[in-house]
C-alpha cells in the first residue's frame, strides 16, 4: 500500500504557479530544453543531487525532507534497521559511553515507527 510519494515537487511548483522552464531557470539549468530536467525530477525518473535538492528547498521554501518525503522515509527506515544491528552489537559493552551510544541507537531505531504512529494519530 502506498507510502509518501518520492517527492512533492510538482505539487509545490503548481502551488506557486511556476512553469517547469521557470523552475529550471531558478535551478540554474541552461540549454533549450531545460524544463526537461525539472520534468524528470517531478516524475520520479531520477533523484536530484544534494545541491539540486537544496536549491528546490530554497525555491519552494520547504525543508528537503518534506519535498522528498518518500525518499526521506526510505532512508529513515534503512537507518533505523542499521541502528538496530549496531545496537545489538553494542549490547554487551558496559561502560558509560556505550550506554549513551545505546540510548542514541535505541532512539534512532525507534524513531521511524514513532513518527508513523504520530502521523496516524494526528
Amino acid at each position, binding site marked *: 500500500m502506498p507510502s*509518501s510519494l518520492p517527492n512533492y515537487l*510538482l505539487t509545490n511548483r*503548481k*502551488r506557486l504557479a511556476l512553469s517547469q522552464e521557470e523552475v529550471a531557470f531558478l535551478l540554474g539549468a541552461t540549454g533549450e530544453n531545460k524544463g526537461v530536467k525539472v520534468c524528470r525530477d517531478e516524475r520520479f525518473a531520477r533523484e536530484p543531487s544534494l545541491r539540486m535538492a537544496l536549491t528546490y528547498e530554497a525555491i519552494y521554501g520547504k525543508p528537503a525532507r518534506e519535498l522528498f518525503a518518500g525518499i526521506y522515509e526510505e532512508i529513515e527506515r534503512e537507518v533505523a534497521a542499521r541502528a538496530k544491528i549496531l545496537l545489538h552489537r553494542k549490547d554487551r559493552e558496559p561502560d558509560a559511553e556505550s550506554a549513551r551510544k545505546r540510548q542514541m541507537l535505541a532512539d534512532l531505531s525507534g524513531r521511524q515507527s514513532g513518527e508513523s504512529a504520530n*502521523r496516524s494519530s494526528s
Partner: protein
Amino acid sequence: MNQTDFRILAIAPSTRGFGFVVIEGERDLIAWGGRVARGDKNAQSLAKVEKLMGLYRPSVVVLQDAAGKDSRRALRIKTLNQQIIAAAGKRKVKVALLTGKQLRTLLLGNAAGTKQEMAETVAKCFPERLASRPPRKRRPWMNEDGRMDVFDAAALAVAFRVRKRGWRASGTRTTSGPAVGASATT
C-alpha cells in the same frame, strides 16, 4: 495505513479526454490536470490513466458510476469506466463509484445542483490551488469549459472524502452524517 498515506485518484472522463485529481491525507491536493485523447480515445485515455496509477500509486480510484440505471453517459464513457475499473483491479487498487445524485447530495446537499455550483464548492475547498481558475459559467450557446473536467474530478474526490470521513465541503469537518455544501452551511 495512516491517513497521510491515503491517496485518492479521482478521474472524470469527458468528450475531450479526462480530468484527474490526486488528494493525499486529510485534504492535500497534490496533483491535478486534464489529459486530452485523440483518435482512439478510450485506448489513449486508458494508457494515460494507467500511467497516473503507476506514478501516484493511489489507495483508491474514484469514478462516476456510469453503469447506474439513471446514468446518461455515452456508451464510450461507460466502456472506458469499465476498462479503468479492470485496470485498477489488476493493480489491486480499490475503486469507488459515485452516482451523479450522490455526488450532488454529498457536495451541495441538493440532488438538483448544477455542475457549476459543484465547481464553485470544490474551488472553495482548495482555495490555494483551484480557486484562482474556476470554469466560466456556461451559456446555452457555449461549449463546456475545458477546466470543468478537473473540477468534476475534484468534486468526485471531495464527495468521496465527505462520505468516508465527514468533511464539510465548505472547509470544516463534520462530526457525523453527510457533509453539506456552501448552500446549506450556516
